[in-house]
């Protein structure tokens, strides 16, 4: 049997105005980041409801990252400020329930930061890979 290297599945929620464009730029510049990062475009990072994050874990994600415009640069003025508070409290709660801190992350990536996007994804994927498969927020029914 061939042993394959464990590649974590990462779900990245990217805001339409900055981070998604940043991801696009990373692609245009041929900057490499793991193919197992699945990007979901959202109108604003504050569109990300906690159920989205939990459902991503349910359906097999090993890590979830939310990317939005830098504070102050939100297309809708203040959406990412709300994201910042919500995700801080949510992540703290996940930690309280014993779920690994490194599985969730928020990063601000502008449309010009293709390199930052790629670097962030590489680094995040590496950290999640070190944790191994998501076992604590998994739904066994969704395992292949």
């Amino acid at each position, binding site marked *: 049997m061939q042993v394959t290297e464990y590649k974590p599945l990462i779900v990245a929620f990217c805001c339409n105005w900055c981070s998604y464009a940043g991801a696009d730029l990373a692609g245009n510049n041929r900057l490499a980041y793991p193919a197992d990062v699945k990007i979901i475009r959202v109108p604003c990072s504050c569109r990300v409801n906690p159920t989205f994050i939990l459902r991503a874990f349910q*359906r*097999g994600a090993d890590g979830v990252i939310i990317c939005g415009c830098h504070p102050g640069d939100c297309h809708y003025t203040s959406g990412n400020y709300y994201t910042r508070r919500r995700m801080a409290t949510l992540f703290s709660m996940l930690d309280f329930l014993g779920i690994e801190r490194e599985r969730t992350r928020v990063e601000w990536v502008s449309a010009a930061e293709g390199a930052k996007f790629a670097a962030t994804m590489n680094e995040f994927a590496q950290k999640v890979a070190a944790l191994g498969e998501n076992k604590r927020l998994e739904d066994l*029914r*969704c395992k*292949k």
Partner: protein
Amino acid sequence: MLKCSLDNVQTLFAEIAKEAKLYLPIDNADGTAVFGEWSRGVAWSNALNTAKSPKDFFFPQTEDLMRFRTEGKKIEVIDVRRESDDFVVFGVRACDVKSFDVLDRVFLSEPCDSFYAEKRAHGIIVSLACTRPAETCFCGIFGIHAAEPAGDVSAWKTEDALYLRANTEKGTALVARLSSVLEECSDDAVNAQKESIAKIMNKLPLKDLSTEAFGGGKTQDLFHSPAWDALSSACLGCGTCTFVCPTCQCYDIKDFNTGNGVIRYRCWDSCMYSEFTKMAHGNNRLTQKERFRQRFMHKLVYYPENNDGLFGCVGCGRCLAKCPISMNIVKVMKQIGGNKGE
């Protein structure tokens, strides 16, 4: 009558567990008891009853019915039913034993529910008489005898011994293989206990609750009672009473898309929930009053009407203990029954 010293009861459990999984009430850290699997060293709870009824053994809270594999326009139905192994549920109280009769009439009537039937066929019930019923107990009014619990094997626990009597073929087979830990004995100790239980039953505060106003054919008398408004007024519409109830049997069938197939499963449902009867074009029970009334009318009138007068309540008292607002079937029976003819 067979007897096993209480000092020896763990050996008895070990003997039972040799050939069948053994479940019995175990104390939880929070002070409640729960049916759990016995293994060496697990202590048998002294609690009067478990917080949740043992109906899960035959009608689990969630249960997969089938799977589907779909590809393009094609569908494949996959039967996921498995043969059940024999298992023993030990220490079931008289009320809960009776609840299996109530469930049987629903699930085993034509067309028989094979999921329930399979587990029922493989489950062996060892009941246990209640020496210290609680104030919330009212099994007696439904003709259930706390001192004479039914089941495949009936059991009585005294200060120092456990007494067993097999009632059915399954029960006889079970005690037969426990002969190394059981000895024949007279009925004296059990008879003495039955007498003392009878005395206590006579002191229970709800012993005089009347079922006279209820039963089949009473729909028109009771449905329009003005008392429903006040009784249901504080109901939160949660499912606590339904889910702790040993006889509530309503269920939902739902599909779960796993991403690589569909699981169709059933799970407990509650007539107290607002969407229980909701259809695409409307809801025939719009207010909590109607939903509340349905639950009690079903237990006290509709069910007996369809089942030779057998009530859909066994008086276990769980809803009395667990309802967040302390509204329950006893208060309903007093109000609705008493209001008759007004």
